[in-house]
C-alpha cells in the first residue's frame, strides 16, 4: 500500500485506486486504524477507562487487548490526570501512547497534565522531550446525554499553544486522520463526534436515523493510509457561499443546503489546529460569502477564530457579513436538547440572510 493514497484535492473519490474499500461505521474505522498502527509500531500503547477487556464503552478498542496483549492495551484507574500524566511519562520514555478519555466532558481533571505539560514539553525542553500522544475522546451531543455527555470543548484546546485538534466527520476520514495523528510527533486531541458514530445525521431528530451504509464516507480503504493533519476536505464545491464546519455539523450543513438548493461550497475543516487556511481563503475569495457552523457554545467558540481569520484575509472579497451558527451559551440541556442543537432552522435562517440579495 502506498503511504499517500489520498489526494488532498479529492480524497474521497481517490481511495479506490488500488485500495479496495470496506463498509464501516466510524467506530469500526477507528478500531481499524488502532489495529493497523499497533501492528506497525510496537511503541504504541492504549490506556483508558474500560478500554481493555471490554473494549471501551463505545467499543472503539474492542478486540485490541486480546490481539496485542495487556502490556499494550489496558484499563486505567478512573483518573484522567493519571491517564494523561502517565501518557506524558510513557512518551518521555519513547512510547507513543493513545489514551482514551471516555467522554470529552471528563477531560477536565487531566487539564494540568495536558495544558501545562504535554503541550509545552517540546518547547520547554528545547526538543529534548516530546509528547507524541494522541488523546481520543468522544464529544458532542444529540444522544440525550445531558450536560456531562454532550459537550463540545474543542475551542479550549485550540487555545493552548502546542496542541493539535482534529475532528473527523466520516469513517473514512476518522481512520486516515487517526493514523496521521498517531504518527504525529506532537500531542493531538482527536475528538470523535459520537452522534455520527453509527451514521450521518442531517439534523432532523424526528426522522429515522441512518447508518453509514451507502454514504461515500462510509467506504473505508483496507490497510494503512493517512490523511495529513491540516488539510480540509471540500465536501461539495459551489459558487454561492462558503460553509466552514466540522464533525456532526458537516452532515447537517450538507442536508440543509441541499434542501435549500443553495450552490454552497461546504468545507469540512477536519483539523482546527493546524488549520487549512489556504482552502478557506480560496473558497471565500471565490464565493464572497461565509457561514461558520459549530455545535459548541458560541462565545469564544472556534467560530470566533474562523470569522476573524476570514475577516482579516478575505475582507475585500466579502459581499455580506460573515455569519456564525452555534450552540447556545448554556450548558447542554437534557429535555430541550433539540432546542439547543444548531439544527436546520437555525442554519436555514443564517443561509437565508446570507443569500438575501
Amino acid at each position, binding site marked *: 500500500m502506498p503511504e499517500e493514497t489520498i489526494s488532498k484535492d479529492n480524497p474521497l473519490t481517490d481511495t479506490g485506486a488500488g485500495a479496495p474499500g470496506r463498509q464501516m461505521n466510524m467506530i469500526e474505522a477507528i478500531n481499524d486504524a488502532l489495529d493497523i498502527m499497533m501492528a506497525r509500531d510496537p511503541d504504541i500503547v492504549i490506556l483508558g*477507562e*474500560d478500554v*481493555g*477487556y*471490554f473494549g471501551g*464503552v463505545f467499543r472503539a478498542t474492542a478486540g485490541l487487548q486480546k490481539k496485542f496483549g*495487556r*502490556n499494550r492495551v*489496558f*484499563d*486505567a*484507574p*478512573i*483518573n*484522567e*490526570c*493519571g491517564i494523561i500524566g502517565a501518557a506524558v511519562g510513557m512518551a518521555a520514555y519513547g512510547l507513543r501512547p493513545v489514551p482514551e478519555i471516555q467522554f470529552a*466532558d*471528563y477531560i*477536565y*481533571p487531566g487539564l494540568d497534565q495536558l495544558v501545562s505539560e504535554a503541550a509545552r514539553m517540546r518547547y520547554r525542553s528545547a526538543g529534548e522531550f516530546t509528547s507524541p500522544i494522541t488523546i481520543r475522546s468522544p464529544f458532542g451531543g444529540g444522544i*440525550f*446525554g*445531558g*450536560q*456531562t*455527555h454532550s459537550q463540545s470543548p474543542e475551542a479550549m484546546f485550540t487555545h493552548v499553544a502546542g496542541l493539535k485538534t482534529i475532528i473527523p466527520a466520516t469513517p473514512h476520514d476518522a481512520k486516515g486522520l487517526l493514523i496521521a495523528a498517531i504518527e504525529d510527533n506532537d500531542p493531538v486531541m482527536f475528538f470523535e463526534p459520537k452522534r455520527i458514530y453509527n451514521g450521518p445525521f442531517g439534523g432532523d431528530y424526528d426522522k429515522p436515523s441512518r447508518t453509514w451504509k451507502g454514504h461515500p464516507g462510509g467506504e473505508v480503504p483496507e490497510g494503512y493510509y493517512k490523511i495529513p493533519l491540516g488539510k480540509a476536505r471540500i465536501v461539495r464545491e459551489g459558487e454561492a457561499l462558503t460553509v466552514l464546519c466540522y464533525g456532526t455539523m458537516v452532515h447537517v450543513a450538507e442536508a440543509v443546503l441541499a434542501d435549500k438548493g443553495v450552490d454552497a461550497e461546504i468545507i469540512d475543516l477536519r483539523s482546527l489546529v493546524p488549520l487549512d487556511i489556504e482552502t478557506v481563503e480560496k473558497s471565500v475569495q471565490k464565493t464572497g460569502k461565509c457561514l461558520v457552523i459549530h455545535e459548541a457554545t*458560541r*462565545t469564544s467558540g472556534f467560530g470566533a477564530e474562523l470569522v476573524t481569520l476570514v475577516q482579516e484575509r478575505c475582507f475585500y472579497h466579502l459581499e455580506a457579513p460573515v455569519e456564525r451558527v452555534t450552540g*447556545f*451559551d*448554556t*450548558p447542554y*440541556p*437534557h*429535555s*430541550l436538547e433539540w*432546542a*439547543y442543537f444548531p*439544527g436546520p*432552522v*437555525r442554519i436555514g*435562517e443564517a443561509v437565508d440572510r446570507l443569500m438575501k440579495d
Partner: protein
Amino acid sequence: MAEGPVEKGIARGNLPPLELYVPEPKYRPGDVVDYSHLPVPPAGLLARPDETCPASETWPLTLDMVRVLDDDDHAVGAWNPGLDPETLRRMLRTMALTRAFDDRLYRSQRQGKTSFYMKCTGEEAISVACAMALAGDDMVFPSYRQQGILISRGYPLVDMVNQIYSNRADPLKGRQLPIMYSAKDYGFFSISGNLATQFPQAVGWAMASAIKGDTRIATAFIGEGSSAEGDFHAAMTFAAVYNAPVVLHVVNNQWAISSFSGFAGAERTTFAARATGYGIAGLRVDGNDALAVYAAMEWAANRARANQGPTLIEHFTYRAEGHSTSDDPSAYRSAQEREEWPLGDPIMRLKKHLIALGEWSEEQQEAMDRELVEQVKVATKEAEKNGILGHGMHHPFHTMFEDVFEELPWHLEEQAAQAMRERGIKWPEWKERDDA
C-alpha cells in the same frame, strides 16, 4: 562522579527484565465463580472503640469487616446498634421501596419514557441505613447511586419520576440527565456527572459548619472506582488537616462499569485502609448488612459531631445489576458472581432478621412488596401526566437560558429569542403553557 550522560538500559547481572503488572479480575463471562478466597469474618467479633478514640485505634478495623447479622440472622456483638423492631421495619420498608422504585423506573427507560436510568440493587442498605443514622439536617453529598437516601428522607417519589422523565414538572427543569437529582430541602446535594467532585465539596461544607459553630455534619459517597480520582485525595487531605466534621464513604461494589476494583488499587489493600495514611479514623463494613452500616455511620457521625474529626468508611458490597441502562455486564463479568456473592442480599438479610426476632413474616413481606409496587406505580402514573421525555411536555424554552447566571446577560436574552423563533418556525401550531 559520573562523567557525561549515563549509559541506558545496561544489563544488571542476572536480574530479570522489568514486567508491567496489569490487574485482571478472577472471573470473566462464563467462568465458574468461587468466592472461597474472599475473607468473610464471622459477625460480632470486632470490638467497638470509643467514638472519641485516637484515629489509630480504628486502623485494625480498616483491614477487617464490621458485621452484625450472623448466619442465623441474629444481631450480635459490640456493633449491634440495638434498634427497636419498629425502626427495623421502617428500614426494611425503605430498602424495599428503593428496589421497587428502581425496578419500575428501569422498565420505564426500556419502554422509551426516558433516556437513562441507574439502579442500586444490592446496595440499598448503604444509603438507607446511613440516612437513618444521620440527623435529618445533616448534609449529604451523594454519587448517583444513593437514591435510597432521598427516598429515606421522604422526598416525593413523584418528583423523582418527574426528574427522570425530564418533564414540565421536573424540579430541575429538564436540564439534568435522569437520576442526577438535587434536593436542598432534604439535605441532598446536586449530583454531578463528573465523578468524585462531591468529595472535597463535602469536606468544605463540613468546614463551613465548623467555621460557623454549627452542629451539623456532612457526609459524602463515592464509588470505589471513583476513589482513584484526585478529588478523593484532595478531600482526605483537607479532612485530615482541618479535622473536618465529615464522614466519607467509599461504596466498594467491586465494579466500575467494566473495570473491577483492582483498577482502583483493591488488590493491594482495602479502601478503608486509605484512612491510615492520612491519619484519620477508618472502618470497613459489610455493606449488605444494614445493621453494620447503621452502626458504622452512627459511630462516625457521633465522632464528627463531638469535634473528633473525619472518618472514612468502606462498604463492601456488590453491584448486582449493570452499571446503568447503557451497560451490559454480561460482556465483561460472570453472571454467577451475583448468585455466589458471599454477603447475600441486604433486603433478604434484614427480612430474615426481623422474622427471627418474631417481628415479621413472609406473608407480611409479600403484602408489603405488593403495596410498594403499587405506591411506585401511582407515582409514575402521576408523573406521566406531566409528560415523558421527548414528547413535548417540557419546561418552557426560556428556562433553558435561566440559571446560567443569576440574571440573563444580553447575549442569552438574544439567544432565548432565537430559540423561541426557531420553535415558531418548526412548530407553527405550538403553544407553550406558561410562555409569554
